[in-house]
């Protein structure tokens, strides 16, 4: 095994181009488990800890550019305002020790359906910035997950950052597990209200071969909110609408039975989380969010 230690992003891309089989390692919280247990013996480990820009973020504009290696701890501490859904999801990752090392790039690279960041990234509508010596491209999060633990990266590409629009409304994340820490999600759900575009987006974790959106549920809810002019009136979402939304979210799941839970449980629980997160976010929107809009003189 070779340990490659690029000091810059350009060096990292060159190393990945020269050794497409090299396994990138940053926080190590996935890769080292596989190595410790002899599940993986890559010829090259590509250490990204020395590439400092991967640990940095820019949050000045309308979009946050979050370096792939920014630890979850930092996201919780510094980005709760612009990225509330992702900050909540970050707080549910494993333990303080793991959150001090792991970041979103690793979640995306591993692309496990259980990765905690995915539902939040899906709900927020993130874009993944990937690069190789051939150039840089941005992959919409909807196109990123291609199969069980598979993603849209080419062999010579590395994940550099994610771009996430600054939240324009409330966002929530909820996860089912046996305790608050050290839990691989039985299932998870992210929901973001986007008052600027009058849309709602969702993300489901651990309940299908990949992280997925509940598109039919979003379409239904978007239409219902529009029809009843709820974005303007700020009235409560009718219980029947919430119920149907929850049922459609359950229907978007394609889960399996495993040690953590049965398919039936997961489907049911996702519906419960969908209804709860809708209530939480909509109540928050009716309160502070919308009031602020009105003060600002919005139509």
């Amino acid at each position, binding site marked *: 095994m070779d*340990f490659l230690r690029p000091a810059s992003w350009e060096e990292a891309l060159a190393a990945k181009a020269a050794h497409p089989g090299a396994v990138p390692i940053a926080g190590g919280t996935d890769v*080292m*488990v596989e*190595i410790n*247990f002899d599940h993986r013996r890559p010829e090259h480990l590509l*250490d990204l800890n020395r590439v400092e820009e991967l640990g940095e973020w820019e949050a000045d504009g309308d979009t946050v550019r979050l370096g792939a290696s920014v630890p979850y701890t930092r996201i919780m501490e510094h980005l709760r305002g612009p990225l509330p859904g992702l900050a909540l999801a970050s707080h549910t990752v494993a*333990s*303080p020790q793991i959150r*001090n090392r792991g970041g979103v790039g690793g979640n995306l690279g591993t692309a496990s359906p259980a990765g905690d960041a995915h539902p939040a990234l899906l709900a927020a509508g993130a874009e993944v910035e990937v690069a190789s010596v051939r150039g840089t491209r941005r992959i919409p999060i909807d196109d990123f997950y291609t199969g069980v633990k598979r993603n849209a990266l080419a062999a010579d590409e590395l994940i550099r950052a994610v771009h996430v629009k600054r939240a324009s409304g409330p966002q929530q994340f909820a996860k089912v597990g046996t305790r608050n820490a050290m839990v691989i999600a039985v299932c998870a759900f992210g929901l973001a209200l986007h008052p600027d575009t009058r849309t709602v987006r969702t993300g489901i974790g651990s309940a299908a071969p990949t992280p997925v959106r509940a598109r039919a549920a979003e379409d239904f809810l978007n239409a219902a909110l529009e029809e009843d002019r709820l974005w303007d009136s700020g009235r409560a979402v009718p219980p029947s609408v919430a119920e149907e939304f929850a049922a459609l979210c359950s229907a978007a799941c394609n889960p399996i039975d495993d040690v953590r839970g049965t398919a039936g449980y997961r489907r049911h629980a996702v519906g419960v989380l969908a209804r709860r997160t809708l209530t939480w976010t909509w109540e928050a929107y009716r309160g502070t969010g919308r009031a602020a809009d009105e003060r600002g003189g919005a139509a």
Partner: protein
Amino acid sequence: MRVSFTVNGRPQEADDVWEGESLLYVLRERLGLPGSKNACEQGECGSCTVRLDGVPVCSCLVAAGQAEGREVVTVEGLADLAERRARRCAGGDGSGSCASGACGTSGAPLDEAPGVPAGDAWSRAARPQDSQAGGGGGLAPIQQAFIDAGAVQCGFCTPGLLVAADEMLERNPDPSDADIREALSGNLCRCTGYEKIMDAVRLAAARQAEEAAR
């Protein structure tokens, strides 16, 4: 490969390190520091917790090569670290002011405050020395609190808990029970049921506050 880094304030070199080796393995098997324990090797138990550039991490999940040039503190260095913190609070760094009694040392070079004589900063430092203790002196206050509160049974989880609890008290000298539970949520103990561990951390926090008030 060779890996050079600082452990508990001392420069260390490990040779013939296999590229896939963990920092935990290097500490235990190559540097003779068996304080950090190996129970799961997958980040689940926290018994391997060390500080990497001040930050608590699972050393089983850090590739040895990633520690190159960095500062590591293990349980063997806790007494030393506490002493240096105390000296700084007592004005050893020239600032002479410390409101909390828990100056953050995260990221600060571990060999700071040279020339300050190892002294009487902690009266408890005169306790019998653990044979494995890496730095001179006896026990760190957090270690003493664990003993006094009866928070150690088989002891396998203890080194990781000590490192994690010590770091929390440095950041947050007056933690709520919820803060303590969260800070220690990545550390499993199969013996104590955690109540005595909670007692120990509360005790250490109280003693730290007393010390600071002096």
